[in-house]
């Protein structure tokens, strides 16, 4: 039987992207939690270039970079497809997955900054969320329509991290009246059983940020 292992870290939304994809496709895998302050020889051997998680190891072969891993998973296990069939719609999906990769991370910087810098990061984050609200999300349940897809997975961190950040900041970030579509999407996303059963513990996340 094929062996699937995932080197991940509970704090990382990129790690969760891979978990969600594997869960949605019903793929059995062994999860290995990495201590990033003491990286395992396996991690360093599998990802010598970046030395980062997540790494998917399939029949002994490592695949690195979460969005590359997602495409790989989609190709190897086509059931419960996470990308549309039509090339143009796939291009739109990939555009937003790339946006999540390139622009999404600004949000993770909020808690690590202070004062003027933090204010700037918050403003940039709100701009980024506005772009998703206005251009990325239609009026359907998920980014691609009625079914969860790779785009939702790519943005998945936004479904739970803002709640943590809001508690730390003592102010709202993803307000329902400012971001009605995104707000609705966070609920829809977290209600998908495979997502609901695979979310990091809120209390533990909050403790880590404070």
């Amino acid at each position, binding site marked *: 039987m094929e062996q699937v292992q995932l080197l991940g870290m509970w704090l990382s939304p990129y790690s969760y992207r891979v978990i969600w994809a594997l869960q949605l496709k019903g793929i059995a895998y062994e999860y290995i939690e990495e201590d990033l302050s003491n990286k395992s020889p396996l991690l360093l051997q599998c990802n010598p270039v970046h030395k980062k998680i997540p790494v998917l190891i399939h029949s002994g072969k490592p695949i690195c970079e979460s*969005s*590359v891993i997602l*495409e790989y998973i989609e190709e*190897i296990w086509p059931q419960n497809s996470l990308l549309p069939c039509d*090339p*143009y719609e*796939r291009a739109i999906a990939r*555009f937003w997955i*790339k946006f999540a990769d390139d622009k999404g991370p600004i949000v993770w910087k909020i808690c690590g900054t202070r004062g003027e810098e933090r204010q700037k990061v918050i403003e940039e984050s709100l701009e980024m969320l506005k*772009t998703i609200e206005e251009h990325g999300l239609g009026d359907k349940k998920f980014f691609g329509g009625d079914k969860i897809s790779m785009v939702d997975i790519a943005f998945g961190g936004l479904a739970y991290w803002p709640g943590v950040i809001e508690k730390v900041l003592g102010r709202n970030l993803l307000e329902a009246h400012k971001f009605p579509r995104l707000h609705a999407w966070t609920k829809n996303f977290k209600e998908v059983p495979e997502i609901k059963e695979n979310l990091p513990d809120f209390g533990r996340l909050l403790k880590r940020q404070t």
Partner: protein
Amino acid sequence: MAEVKLFKTWSTQFGARVVWALKLKGIQYEAIHEDLSNKSALLLQYNPVYKKVPVLVHNGKPISESLVILEYIEETWKQNPILPEDPLGKANARFWAKFNDEKLLPSIWSAFTKEGKEREEAMGAVLESLKFVEEELKGKKFFGGETIGLADLVFGWLANLAPVFEEVAGLKILDERYPLLLAWQPEFSEHPIIKDYWPPHDKLVIKYQALYEKYHPAK
């Protein structure tokens, strides 16, 4: 009849990738040249998120972001593939494309625009990154193997633009430390399809000289 348009500038390396892919597959396209200091209404309509080139428009439908465009081209026109068939090979090509865009390019840009210690550190990062890229070429003529692949198109700037950075900014990027990359450079640049679309060196030098002076004004 299928209609393909490409919004770009004469110098964009991201646009060059797309042109090379279209030419490798023998796809006719109409090039629309953008003046980035005065962007057309059409560009802003087609790429409202980034307002950048390149944008491919196929039968009236726009696609932005060069890597996304390359995947679209690959899926729409199956002749002369730029990605291997096997999923692991595809993953590898995509990994290196991301590496170039997310690690190598930002470092070289930092080296070009910064001074003193910051420039040194940025160049250090470039040279470290190139060690990995050099490894990837072991036993291969191109990153794609025997034929040009996605990674070659993405690393194409190393052949077209790196010599310009050396001339303008004194940044020695490819030297004898990277024999495989040095061998790859002319294989890529002299390939008949690639050669046919080659942002001209002299014109690039003028452009980047002006940019360099902007970032390093004479004191």
